[in-house]
């Protein structure tokens, strides 16, 4: 369900109704998909770690709406939203969370390792900071082959103190690679507030050190994200200039299903306050206000989303476990 419209400089001008509804539908799909995943985790149908993106949907959706199917996206372990926004099939994603044979990664990856080559979604990585050099390498390949492509690399504020953040930004700025580093600053790395992790908490300002364009945007506003990332994508396409985008957002749930309350390191008040900025409710109201959506339209849209999520769960449930032989397959290409 990747959005096809070619605009890479959105935000300016009046919002197109179809686009608006698409963005809203994507965000809602992510939200409902994950609410369902949380239920399935509670039922023991999903194991391991499960990190929910709830609250941050506007970042993946707004950013990925600025690129095409043949452009790349790569993310961390909190990547259900990015995979969906890039166009992966919710049924195969849910099957992957269930560890079934029809999962995008054949059930071998799980929630943290969603890969979907058919939509150029490069995963799904569980080492904080570890895939930033890889994203940089994908951009290197784009330049090497002189393709008109870009890669969006999503990571959290917790990756910034990691050495590979620095190595990657230096290399892409030095070599002029078409990559957009999108830091989803939700102000916490697990239980560590950003002020306790970084001497410089305005993350976009790290870009200056590499003479790279850096910009912050409101990660709770899908249009602001879209506009900001759109500018970065344009720079990447037109002049192979990498950028650092800081999307200021918030995670409504715990770090993972094993950190349900997340109450140790942040106050109920703070969470309640942030939930008022819900990217979905806010955008829906805006569309209603601007007359780009009516109650009936909203109902239809949410019903369709519910249906797709139900379908995904049914599909995953129906999919068998991977056969035993698969244990030793795909070790070598």
């Amino acid at each position, binding site marked *: 369900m990747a959005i096809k419209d070619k605009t890479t400089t959105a935000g300016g001008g009046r919002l197109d109704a179809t686009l608006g509804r698409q963005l809203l539908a994507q965000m809602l799909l992510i939200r409902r998909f994950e609410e369902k995943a949380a239920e399935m985790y509670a039922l023991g149908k999903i*194991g*391991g*770690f499960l990190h929910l993106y709830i609250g941050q949907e506007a970042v993946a959706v707004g950013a990925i709406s600025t690129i095409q199917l043949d452009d790349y996206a790569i993310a961390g372990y909190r990547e259900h939203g990015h995979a969906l926004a890039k166009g992966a099939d919710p049924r195969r994603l849910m099957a*992957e969370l269930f*560890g*079934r044979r029809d999962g995008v*990664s054949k*059930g*071998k*990856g*799980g929630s*943290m*390792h969603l890969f979907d080559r058919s939509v150029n979604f490069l995963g799904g*990585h*569980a*080492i*904080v*900071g*570890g895939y930033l050099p890889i994203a940089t390498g994908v951009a290197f390949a784009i330049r090497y082959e002189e393709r008109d492509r870009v890669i969006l690399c999503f990571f959290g504020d*917790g*990756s910034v*103190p*990691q*050495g590979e953040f620095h190595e990657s930004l230096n290399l892409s700025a030095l070599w002029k690679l078409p990559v957009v580093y999108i830091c989803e600053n939700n102000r916490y*790395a*697990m*239980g*560590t507030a950003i002020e*306790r*992790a*970084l001497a410089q908490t305005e993350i976009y300002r790290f870009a200056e050190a590499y003479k790279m364009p850096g910009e912050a945007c409101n990660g709770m506003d899908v249009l602001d994200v879209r506009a900001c990332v759109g500018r970065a994508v344009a720079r990447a396409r037109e002049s192979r200039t990498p950028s650092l985008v800081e999307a200021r957002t918030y995670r409504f749930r715990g770090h993972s299903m094993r950190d349900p309350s997340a109450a*140790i*390191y942040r106050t109920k008040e703070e969470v309640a306050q942030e939930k008022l900025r819900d990217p979905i409710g806010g955008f829906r109201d805006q569309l209603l206000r601007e007359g780009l959506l009516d109650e009936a339209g909203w109902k239809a849209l949410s019903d369709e989303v519910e249906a797709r999520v139900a379908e995904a769960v049914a599909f995953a449930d129906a999919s068998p*476990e*991977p056969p*035993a032989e*698969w*244990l*030793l397959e795909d*070790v070598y290409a």
Partner: protein
Amino acid sequence: MGVITYREALNHALREEMERDERVFLMGEEVGIYGGAYKVSQGLLEKFGERRVIDTPICESGFTGVGIGAAMVGLRPIVEMMTFNFALLALDQIVNHAAKLHYMSGGQFACPLVVRGPGGPAHQLAAQHSQSMETYFYHVPGLKVVRPTTPRDAKGLLKSAIRDDNPVIFIESETLYGVKGEVPEEAEFLIPLGVAEVKREGRDVTAIAYSGMYYRVLEAAEEVERTDGISVEIVDPRTLRPMDTDTILASVRKTHRALVAESGAGFAGMGSEIAAFVTESAFDDLDAPVARVTGANAPMPYARNLERLKTPSKEKIVEALRRVCGAA
């Protein structure tokens, strides 16, 4: 003697050693306010304050190096790896710096550092989070490597590791944190590094296993005892470097047969070295080649059913015990 969990045993060891020695401090991701991702350091921040229980940003190489530098000038840091998989990012610090400082400086500087945290597979954490990390350390001169199996081992060995003047890699197990057992309470209860333990007496075959594998071997031993009357002696090395070859060899010379079980992928693992030195030193005492039971030679898959097939099951161990005893 009280019955406590493996997690509590580690927590008590940290608490006691920090009380005993002002130079000991704990540093790592989420060790403070969060009480540790696996709650091992619960309550330590409250007790010792921010000066001695330090939450770090995510930069394994950086904060491990901070530990090394602090150790070089007289402190006794304990660096927690949230899980040992992330120690790969700090490997240059550990192998090329911590392990070699004492030697390169002609003995002028020591590095009394403990790097600790859970290692090995847990439950459906998939390839990047389910590795038997000891492999990267036990061959490195200058390091000591510990893998505690019981709450008792956990406490006694961690206290010794903290008091040791060398860099000690202390690999716990996420799947054992909840295991309960009897643990001595006296402050001076220590288990020396480099000493194996015969955890089960037996006559017919010596099974060598540590950490989670020990428990599977124990189940298998009980089964073959019932079904085949095979009496299995289980030796837990506890410390992988330096390895207590004497205790293992003494047992093999008694039983004339040996089996090694490890959860890691088999090729060139700990089991290879154990099989090699046992054969080297007890060749004429052996009635059969040393049997190795290891994990499948693949990364860890996420799917529950495949994950089960990846690590050695009780059944595999039972079968290997029978084979090595000629009962199969």
